[in-house]
Structures are given as C-alpha cells and as structure tokens.
C-alpha cells in the first residue's frame, strides 16, 4: 500500500531534537516594541496580543524563527512555550526563511476546477522552486500551496506577499506579475 509521501514542507512538525532555524536579528526594534505595547493596551488580557505580535515579528524578522518567538514572549511578558505553541499552530507564520516574493497559490476546489494545478506547476517552473522547499538560490522566490484565498469567483487565485491577484491568473498574467516583482513594484494597496 502506498501512502501519500510526507511533504517536504517547512510547516511540518519538528522531528525530535530538531530546532527551528534562527534569523539574524534577535531583538525587536523600539518602534515594534511600542506597537506591541499599544496593541496590548487594547485588550483586557495581554495574552491576546500574541497573534498580532507574531505578525509584527514576521514583518520585522522576515520569518518567525525561534529568536523571534522568544522576542515576542519577552515583549508581552508571557511564557516562551505558549508563543511557540501558537506560532506553530497557524500556517501564516513562516517558520523558515521565505523568498523576497512569496507566492501562495490556492489549489482548493474552486481554483482547482479552473486550472490551479496547472498554474501551480507553471509558478514552480518559472521560479525554479518547489512548494514549501524554501527560497530560490538568489533569495527572490518561494512558493507555497495554500487552502483557499477567498477568490473563488475569480479563480485561479494567487497571492504574492500581501498582494492578492484574484483576477483569473493565467500564464501571461503570471509573467507580468513576476516581471513587476523583479522591478520591485508593488500595487498601491499591497505596500
């Protein structure tokens, strides 16, 4: 019997003894600390700032490394184990480095009916990276297969960093998006 092969993704559970990679930075900037404190003040319980602080950590550190989790725990004043548990539960926190342009390709049913599988293969071919396999050698691209981007009516749908291309992405459109990335252009709402 052939079971599905375990995927080579960075979001897989850690093996015993295996540790998450470290980012170069270890501490939040003063601005980020101020931002986290402002968020903590909004909620009746400081624990509620965990998710927003992890989003800030991802923005500041590039990905949610062990040191980023420790920095979050320190900034909020909560146990490191709690932050680790939360960060590893949610898929939007990248636990390993990603490329400067991170492609999230939705392959769920509505997108699949409109050719998402073929689009994902095209994205992998053009960027030269496999889904979940880390950034390309030049650090430009990384690819992830995701579950639904809520663009079902205009499928297939692709997200590049925070920029959702929910406009029937085909090969031509994909090339345009990649060219824009190479020029460092973002659309105004995705800066």
């Amino acid at each position: 019997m052939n079971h599905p092969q375990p995927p080579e993704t960075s979001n897989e559970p850690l093996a015993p003894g295996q540790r998450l990679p470290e980012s170069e930075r270890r501490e939040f900037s003063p601005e980020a600390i101020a931002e986290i404190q402002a968020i903590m003040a909004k909620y009746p319980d400081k624990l509620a700032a965990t998710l927003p602080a992890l989003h800030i950590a991802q923005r500041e550190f590039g990905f949610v490394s062990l040191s980023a989790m420790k920095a979050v725990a320190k900034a909020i004043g909560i146990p490191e184990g709690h932050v680790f548990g939360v960060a590893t539960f949610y898929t939007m926190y990248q636990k390993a480095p990603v490329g400067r342009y991170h492609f999230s390709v939705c392959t769920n049913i509505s997108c699949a009916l409109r050719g998402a599988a073929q689009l994902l293969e095209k994205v992998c071919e053009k960027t030269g990276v496999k889904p979940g396999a880390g950034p390309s050698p030049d650090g430009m691209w990384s690819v992830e297969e995701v579950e639904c981007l809520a663009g079902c009516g205009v499928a297939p749908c692709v997200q590049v960093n925070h920029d959702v291309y929910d406009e029937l992405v085909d090969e031509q459109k994909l090339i345009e998006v990649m060219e824009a990335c190479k020029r460092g252009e973002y659309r105004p709402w995705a800066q």
Partner: protein
Amino acid sequence: MAAIRTKPDHHTYTFPGFGSEKFPNLLLRGAGDLNNWHLKVYEQQHEGYVAMKAALKMEPVAVTEEVKTSGLRGRGGAGFPCGLKWSFMPKDTADRKFTRYLVCNADEGEPGTFKDRVILEYNPHQLIEGMIIGGWAMQCVTGYVYVRGEFLWLIEKLEAAIQEARDAGYLGKNILGTGWDYDILVHRGAGAYICGEETALLNSLEGRRGEPRVKPPFPAAKGAFGQPTTINNVETLAAVPPIMRMGGAEYAKIGSPKNSGTRIFGVSGHVKRPGIYELPMGTPMNFLVEELCGGSSTGRKIKAIIPGGASCPMLDEKDFDVPMDFDNLRARGSMGGSGGLIVMDEDTCIVQATLRLIRFYAHESCGQCTPCREGCNWMEMILYRIEHGEGKMEDLDLLASLTPRIGMRTLCPLGDAACGPMDSALQKFRHEFEHHITHKTCYATGSRLLSKVGAH
C-alpha cells in the same frame, strides 16, 4: 497605513434586475462602487446610520425583539435564529457584573465562500452599523471583528471605515448622548480555517491556539475573556440595519417561510458568470445557475453542485431545482451552509474533487479530537490510493463505515463537515469510484484537478 485598495474589480456583483423589487439588494447596496466604503457615501446614498439612530432611541430589549420578529437566521452556516441568539445574553443590562462582547466572525476560509469579503470591501459601514445596533441590543462594551489574516487590504479598509465612524461620534464614549460607551476593534487571524468555529475563534482572539472549546458553557455565558459573548457572521450583522430600517415584520415578508430575507450567494466553478448574487432566500438553484450565471462555462452538462461551501453534501441533477434556503436544502440531504455554490461539469472527476476536499479537512483539523484528526487523514489516504489506481472495492465500504465514526463525534463540526462531501460523493457517484478501482483511470476525461508538484 498602506493605500486603500482602489482596484476596479472586473467581475460584476450586479445582474439584470439587481436592486429591483424582485431582487432587493439589502446587503450589497452600491456594490461595485469603489467609493462606497466611505461614510459620506453610505450616509448620503444608502440611508446609512438611520437604523442605528432609530435603534439607539429604543430599549435594548425592543431591538432584540425586532430582530426576532424579522426571523433572521445566522448566515455563517448553521442558520440559527439571530434574535434568539442575542436573547441568550444575560438579561439584566443594568448589571455591571458582566462585560459583554459582540464578536463578528469574518474568518471566511471555507473553499467556495467569498461573500463576506464583498461586504468588507464595498459596504464596511453597513457591518459597523449592524455591530453598533447589536452592541446596543446586548449592551456590549466592545465589538471585535475577527478577520482572516489573508485579508490584509480589507483590514486596512475596515479600520479606516471604523475611524470614520469614530470621528462621526458613532463609536467611542457616550455615543450620540446615550451615555453608552462602545468601540470596535479588528483582530487579525493567522491562517487557520478552524478559527471560523465560534469557540476556536474565541481562543484565537484571546491569543491561544485555535482549538474549539467544550460546550457548555456556551459563549453567551462564558465567551471572550470569560465574559458573555455573542458571535455573529459578517452577513448576519450586515442584515441588521435593513431590518431596523424597514421593520422586522416587513423584512420577514422577503424570502421563503421560516427563511426570511435575502442572502448573498457566491458562485464559483464551471459557470459563465461566477461571482456574487444577492437573492431572496428560497430562490431555486437552477434559476441562479442557469439564468443568472449563464449556465455551464465549458458547454458540457453540469454534473454536481455543492450548494453552500465545501462542507455541504453535493447535489446531483435531480436536485438542481431545490429552493435555496436552510430547510429545503436540508430536506434534500444537503445544507444552506455559507451560501457558496461550487459548480462542477461532466468532465470533473468526482474522485479527484473529493480527495481535494478531504485533503482540506485533513490539513485544517486542529488535531484535538482523535476521530477528526485520524479519520480525515485516513479518508485522505484511502482516496489517494483510489485516485492513484491502487484502490480496492473494499475501500468504498471502508470509507462508508468511517464517516459515521467521525461525524457527530467531535468537539466541533469540522469532522461532520468532512463527512458531508465524502458521504454524498459515495452515494451519488459511486460508479466513478468503482471505475477508478477497476479501470485505474478517471471515469471523466476532464483536466487534472490535482497538481503534480504540490506539497501534498
């Protein structure tokens, strides 16, 4: 703050007859107008905040009664009466022992569902107004909007709209001289479908892993931060201002018996005009798919329709005439769900489609309950085998025997949700599974639904 998204969407939310008496647009007012999210446009063109001002002059209990009269049923999936849910909150509003919260569930993550984002994108003030009315009815101190993490550009737009409402004095201290303090905060999720379940959402809001809680206690007794909380979907809360404006009794006249009002249907898959359609509850499904969406986009016959998001059982040809409301869909063996129709044509391989759906549930199971965690993965493995030509006939019986051991045996409905498509696919399209097993190829000859390079 990043720039507000001003991209003109190329797909339309309107269709001939949209906004007419036959198709009243109560939720998608001004849909497609890019400036519609501004307070001044909402106030000047769409009777904005009229309902809120009227509600604030009423007793909180009377507001809840009006919602009860309207017969509004929750649009998040379960179809539970909204007014009844509101009335579960502690009655004594003068009792300061409790801090009451209203939570808006905007964690729209079910495949095939994309209705809430349209309200957030084009009509955020209607949601804010609905949240203020709900907050007043239940005497809440804070309203939280839990938005899925991917909707970053919508969060920025929503926050800008909330700030406009604050500046106008509709939020904050002593709202319009009533002595009532109330504010709305936006909380961003981080990519877990399970957080759409109400108790998992509360855990996530509190900064924990999004694992569902044991009920009781129900959120109305012990919800966010241990306080009484009501959780409503975006569409449910956005339906409240029209109810207060036109009166509950008048609203109850729209739609079908016991399923009042309009609903937003999101159509995706093999149709000519996929997109968002606001229609009275009880509109026949084939009217929406054939007349409004233009029928099949591929020219081939439509084989199956999932009527309410990925968790609903599939319907085949004999049920395409079903009136789309909670009760009629349940009577035909499916569910109203979130109102997202997924249309599949004749060339779609049901085995592949089911594998893709079950893979989603296996991936999104929070892992807390064994039947869901193990069962969904097991179903995925069996389907994978069948899809790859290694299935046996016994596998079909095994699959059929698995679903009763997963459904209704978990803390939250995620396990049940996985069983819906699995059971219906086996019942209605068993011959396709058998074809896969005996011939080791697809019964349908259509394009591949599953990628060769995917991580799965």
